[in-house]
């Protein structure tokens, strides 16, 4: 039971550079279409309830993209990613609400704190071979959620704390006007997705992928694998921190320790694996699918959670490579079938 079964025969590339260029062009197109969709969606969806749902899909997307970098490219698992989400949310929430900072420097400060914590955890554990990061992050996740609960003077404890909105040069982003916040959050999604796409196609990104395929081979090629893994981990924590800040200033204007616990860490893991780790669109598919499964299951009442668990198991058994790959293969298969049918018909007609 290891990863070898996952590799699929790939069409031999005619020319590495050509393939790369083509892939980049395709990605640009994909991201552009995401942009277009983001811009026009509120025109079609007027109900602020749906806008609200899509805002939180966006937050999940940022979280999942960060985690995808770590899991799909650096081959490491984090069992406590919600902690970085929480540090981001609380650091900027406390700095703005308690100390009266503007949200932008607060976001930056939150980012610095999160990266520091991630670096402190990642540096020693990622030098070791194996899944020590998963275990250490599990611990960090629990410790952070205990601290958020217990440091009542600072965090308000389990009762939570009120936060403020985001003001830019005297102009306040009205987060209760959902469409504004929608564009704000999805603006970040687009920026961070482009960043991600560039990152994984850059030299360090390719190094990471080599590392995921075979750590030994990467080391032989002279890649300092540990350093790359630490970098990937810190960046993925930074993504979570940004999502945290966006959460803290969302229309709830309220944060409590509940969403930053172990359950969220696991939900994020599920999102990435279900969507397809190591693909650009995996997190998108994962975040959207999970949100819709939950929306769809709401009328099931108490059976909801049972059906959710069942769907999760079935999907993972049927599509172990993730939905993005699974659907891709399905599409591929379907197109081939259609092509063959067409060819057959053309042949028959002649």
């Amino acid at each position, binding site marked *: 039971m290891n990863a070898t079964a996952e590799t699929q025969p790939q069409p031999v590339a005619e020319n590495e550079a050509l393939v790369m260029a083509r892939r980049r062009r395709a990605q640009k197109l994909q991201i552009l279409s995401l942009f277009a969709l983001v811009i026009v969606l509120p025109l079609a969806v007027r109900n602020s309830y749906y806008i609200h749902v899509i805002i939180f899909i966006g937050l999940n997307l940022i979280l999942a993209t960060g985690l995808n970098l770590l899991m799909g490219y650096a081959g490491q698992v984090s069992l406590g990613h919600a902690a970085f989400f929480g540090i981001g949310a609380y650091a900027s929430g406390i700095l703005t609400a308690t100390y009266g900072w503007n949200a932008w420097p607060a976001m930056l400060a939150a980012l610095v704190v999160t990266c520091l914590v991630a670096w402190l955890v990642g540096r020693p554990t990622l030098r070791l071979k194996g899944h020590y990061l998963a275990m250490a992050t599990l611990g960090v996740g629990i410790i952070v959620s205990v601290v958020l609960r217990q440091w009542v003077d600072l965090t308000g404890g389990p009762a939570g704390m009120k936060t403020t909105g985001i003001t830019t040069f005297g102009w306040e982003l009205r987060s209760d006007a959902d469409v504004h916040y929608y564009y704000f959050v999805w603006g970040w999604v687009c920026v961070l997705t482009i960043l991600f796409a560039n990152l994984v196609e850059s030299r360090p990104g390719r190094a990471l992928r080599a590392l995921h395929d075979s750590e030994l081979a990467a080391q032989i090629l002279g890649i300092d694998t540990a350093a790359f893994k630490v970098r990937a981990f810190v960046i993925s924590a930074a993504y979570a921190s940004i999502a945290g800040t966006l959460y803290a200033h969302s229309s709830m204007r309220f944060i409590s320790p509940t969403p930053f616990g172990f359950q969220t860490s696991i939900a994020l893991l599920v999102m990435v694996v279900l969507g397809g780790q190591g693909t650009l669109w995996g997190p998108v598919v994962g975040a959207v699918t999970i949100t819709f499964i939950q929306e769809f299951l709401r009328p099931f009442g108490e059976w909801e959670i049972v059906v959710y668990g069942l769907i999760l198991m079935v999907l993972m058994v049927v599509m*172990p490579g993730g939905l993005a790959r699974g659907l891709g293969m399905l599409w591929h298969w379907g197109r081939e079938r259609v092509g063959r049918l067409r060819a057959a018909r053309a042949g028959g007609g002649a």
Partner: protein
Amino acid sequence: MTAVQVWQFFLSGLTTGGTYALIALGFSLVYNATGVINFAQGEFVMLGGMITATAIAAWGLPLWLAALIAVAITTVVGLVLDRAAIRPARHSSVVVLIIITVGASIFIRGLASIIWGPNERPLPAFSGEAPIVIFGATITAQSLWVLGATLVTALIMWAIFEYTIVGKAMRACAINPHAAQLCGIELSRMVSWSFALAAAVGAIAGIVLAPITMAQYNVGTMLGLKGFCAAILGGLGNGLGGILGGLVLGVLEALGAGLVSSQYKDAIAFIVLIIVLLIRPSGLLGREGGDP
């Protein structure tokens, strides 16, 4: 702070540690056979307690029969989990298998909340409620049951691995699955065995713990987490290490709560975990340089 107080913390920590130890043992069993961290392990514990409580309260069965039924049903659940979800996906990566166990734990917990409702269920202590005083510290008779069950289960496991063909085969698979298969050991059967044993051990933990903590549909999550922590502490995949890790964790938690701060009790356990990971990554008894 008197010595008696510290002795009291130590004793009560040992009780909690006993359950952590049993849960850790379950984690190690599955980990050795598959490399998978079974997130449904905590649910086995929950099932053990819940089924026993129901069998006694609703069906009026005697304790020994109720416990036997609980272990049997939970074992079947473990087997079904393996056959229905793990085996069909056995060629997938470890992370995918972990997510499947996450799905299974959500599924089992959800079903349990529908069947039994959200409320906790008490279970009478096996041999009376009267507290026992040992050198000034009080301990309930049920605590002795927990420690006894831990000890006996550990011995049985040791005997299985040492003296039975199945046990030896499972050890072979853990050391080198490919070589084991070459010797004619069927890997997937060993995986089934490991799930069955892990479920049974989990159920036993749940049964002896239930009179102390009451059975509830959602106890599995936190217990599973602590058991996992204990397993890492002792060296994941190392049975004896897991038991030691469980006991150490329980005692540290109790000492932490009593002497340092009851507020940060849960954090103390995991801070210890991180320190151990940094100093001795393979755990207390794990092989040096071994892969976790």
